[in-house]
């Protein structure tokens, strides 16, 4: 009897083996993010959430790897033709969700649409055109030599031109990008990505199913169905994971890291992030901030290591510059300076021994522990006799104040859309110029035309080693000048159930490549 049973089980196992190999994408994943995609039109808004959606339902020409290298996706190869031109070969046999074939006309359509998009047009401003050579060859042409051409190509997720062209039943243009109100593209989607959307209730859930004709058959991904539930409340999101309600959550709040680490059944992944948190010192509002010695004193008075260790519970990387490690401009010689005696000495030298009073503003629901960080900084400044009148606001109220430069010191966090140092400088330290839009978020009104010129020069330098040297020089000069107060790069954290192998698909840009996710 026992023999018979073993033989029976054996034959079933044999029969099941080839089946298991063919039915690859049969796993189901429930996941909870802190928000869901606001729209299905990937060109409507440039945000982390939208890029996450883009990587699930579309595919870029090329994409970033874990160590910030480029990996071919829909473009299988590329070569530089001349100073301003890069030629790309498109992968053949790629199908859209609608069944249409991907050709260069779709890439061209997408490129033109990106130039129309309010959120993306600034990023694509250096490009003059996309030239179609044949069905599977095209060229990206820039106005001047542009070192970030490939960085920008990671933002081109080809859209199905046939699907998005024409009129809807009520006569609206299908390709229109609408910021508010409904458009065809905000509710319908046809990409080449690993997942199609089968059901979506905004703010409640989005359901994805693996696309049968997905081109990347080499991908190890075996998840057939994904249900995304937005859970904004930190506690609830963590509880959902711990109770087994979901298999993957992001982000993990710093206060719950220990709880998840202690749970045998969960898996925590953390990474040093690329979003810098900093304070601007407004030189137009406070006379003393014009004095480099005062700015330096403030830089010496603030304990980045302490903030990262105590307030962020080790969940941040203390910073002395804007560029995180891995960026071209990252200058390794710059380290946080913290020396209260030195700070007091500098204040004395500057003639402000008795100190002065300033106002400070920070958001209280935008960055991790933002209000607590601001309180700590205010307390640290008290030690060099700078009395701080601190006000923290919800982000919806904070940004209008920020645009007005309503306080002497203001907090901001910044992530470079181009994954490049120059983006930090252009928005945060360039001389504010309403005409060109540079220095848009430079609430310190710090202005050093010499540095601006150097960054502009770096922006047309295609020799990446030379360019890196220039950008590192800029970081060093800003550091010496104490142009702003860098605090830290916010770390990133994700967590999953033990059998959901998220480690290989995560990256510092925080768009998990869910198409490649393996569940055991």
């Amino acid at each position, binding site marked *: 009897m026992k023999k018979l049973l073993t033989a029976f089980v054996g034959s079933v196992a044999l029969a099941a083996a080839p089946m298991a190999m063919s039915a690859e994408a049969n796993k189901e994943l429930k996941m909870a993010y802190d928000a869901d995609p606001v729209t299905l039109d990937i060109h409507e808004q440039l945000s982390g959430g939208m890029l996450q959606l883009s990587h699930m339902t579309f595919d870029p020409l090329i994409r970033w790897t874990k160590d910030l290298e480029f990996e071919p996706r829909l473009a299988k190869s590329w070569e530089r033709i001349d100073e301003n031109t890069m030629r790309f070969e498109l992968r053949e046999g790629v199908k859209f969700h609608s069944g249409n074939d991907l050709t260069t006309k779709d890439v061209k359509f997408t490129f033109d649409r990106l130039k129309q998009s309010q959120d993306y047009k*600034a990023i694509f401003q250096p490009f003059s055109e996309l030239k179609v050579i044949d069905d599977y060859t095209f060229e990206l042409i820039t106005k001047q030599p542009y070192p970030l051409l490939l960085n920008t190509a990671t933002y081109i997720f080809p859209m199905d031109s046939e699907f998005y062209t024409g009129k809807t039943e009520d006569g609206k243009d299908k390709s229109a990008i609408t910021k508010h109100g409904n458009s065809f593209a905000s509710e319908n989607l046809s990409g080449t990505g690993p997942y199609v959307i089968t059901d979506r209730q905004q703010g409640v859930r989005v359901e994805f199913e693996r696309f049968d004709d997905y081109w990347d058959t080499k991908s190890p991904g075996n998840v057939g169905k994904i249900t995304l*539930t937005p859970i904004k409340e930190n506690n609830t999101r963590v509880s959902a994971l*711990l109770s087994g309600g979901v298999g993957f959550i992001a982000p993990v709040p710093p206060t719950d890291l220990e709880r998840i680490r202690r749970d045998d059944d969960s898996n925590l992944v953390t990474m040093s992030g690329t979003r810098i948190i900093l304070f601007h010192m407004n030189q137009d509002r406070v006379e003393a901030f014009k004095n480099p010695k005062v700015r330096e004193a403030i830089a010496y008075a603030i304990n980045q290591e302490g903030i990262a260790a105590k307030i962020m519970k080790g969940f941040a990387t203390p910073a002395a510059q804007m560029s995180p490690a891995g960026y071209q401009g990252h200058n390794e010689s710059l380290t946080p300076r913290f020396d209260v005696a030195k700070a007091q000495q500098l204040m004395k030298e500057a003639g402000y021994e008795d100190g002065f009073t300033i106002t400070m503003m920070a958001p209280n629901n935008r960055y991790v522990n933002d209000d607590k960080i601001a309180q700590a900084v205010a307390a640290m400044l008290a030690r060099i006799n700078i009395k701080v009148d601190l006000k923290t606001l919800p982000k919806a109220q904070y940004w209008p104040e920020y645009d007005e430069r309503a306080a002497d010191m203001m907090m901001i966090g910044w992530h470079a859309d181009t994954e490049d140092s120059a983006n930090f400088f252009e928005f945060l330290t360039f001389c504010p110029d309403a005409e060109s839009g540079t220095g848009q978020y430079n609430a310190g009104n710090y202005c050093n035309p010499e540095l601006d010129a150097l960054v502009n020069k770096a922006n047309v330098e295609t020799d990446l080693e030379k360019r890196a040297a220039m950008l590192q020089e800029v970081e060093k000069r800003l550091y010496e000048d104490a142009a702003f107060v860098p605090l830290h790069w916010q770390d990133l954290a994700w967590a999953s159930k033990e059998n959901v192998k998220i480690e290989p698909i995560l990256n510092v840009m925080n768009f998990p490549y869910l198409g490649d996710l393996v569940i055991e």
Partner: protein
Amino acid sequence: MLAFLVQRISQAFLVMFVISVIAFAIQDGLGDPLQQMVGMSVSQDEREAIRDDMGLNDPLVVQYFRFAGNALQGDLGTSYFYGKPTLDVILEHLPATLELVIGASLIIIVFSVPIGVYAAIRPQAWLAKFFMGISTVGISIPVFLTAIVLIQLYSIGVTVDWFPADTGWGRWLNGALSTDGGLPSYGRGDELTHLFGTWDSGFFSESGLWHLVLPSVSLASIMLPLFIRLIRAEMMEVLQSDYIRYARAKGLSAVRVNFLHALKNTMLPVITVGGVQIGIMVAYTILTETVFQWPGVGLMFLEAITRSDIPLIVAYLMVVGLIFVITNTLVDLIYGLVNPTVKLTGKKA
């Protein structure tokens, strides 16, 4: 009766008007809705263009009259975030909230009446004292704390190993204090039954009912003690009254006296208070829905505030105002039915 309804309808209009004016007056303080719609790197000029396009640059008075004109035609504006008419958005989220309120109300009714009556009839019994003690604690614990504790106990589960496991009593205590978890901690579950319109119900599937348990208990936890105490107090007062004593003296059975004569008069003030409590319930659903990611109007409203989705905020406030007026009217009508001596419209005597 007709005069009463006419009076109530005109009151409703006044309430709506006041709410809309207040909501409009505070919208500057709610922040910039555009911030949520555009990326950080979008230039000021682009932002101005979008703002113009959305009519946000018009004077507030112009914006108000545009809104009021549309509202009179039944159009409460379009949500910035959902890109849909606000009324549609609210109707989509309303069933979830109503089911939560129904779930909580059932728990309240099922437990508050017997416990309240029992505590009134046998005020000295240890069980009655126990219930009263628990209800004092229940009133003073905030609903979100109850919710978090419930999730920890019944979703995640707690393993207690404080007592020696090699003794019988230790094992028993450990076992008694440990919980298994496993109850759903968020959302309404996957299996909803479509009823009609936007109503997808969780009442008809096992998964839907399990998802209702923790949120309903949390929401009920704040109201249940209140009702127990209220019913007990009213009942005790009624039991002291002459007609009850007379009924007892006549030799009517205790059940008949307690449950027919006394309870009926006890319920009058309870109904009134219950009607008022519906308003408070709305406030507590916001907290409960946030903790349980319950996709109802409370959660929707809170998120609309963080996104400065002004049309949706205004529409929600107006719908809630309407619900208030309607429930208060119903409460008054029911009161009149139960106790016909009450005059609905104040006539001069």
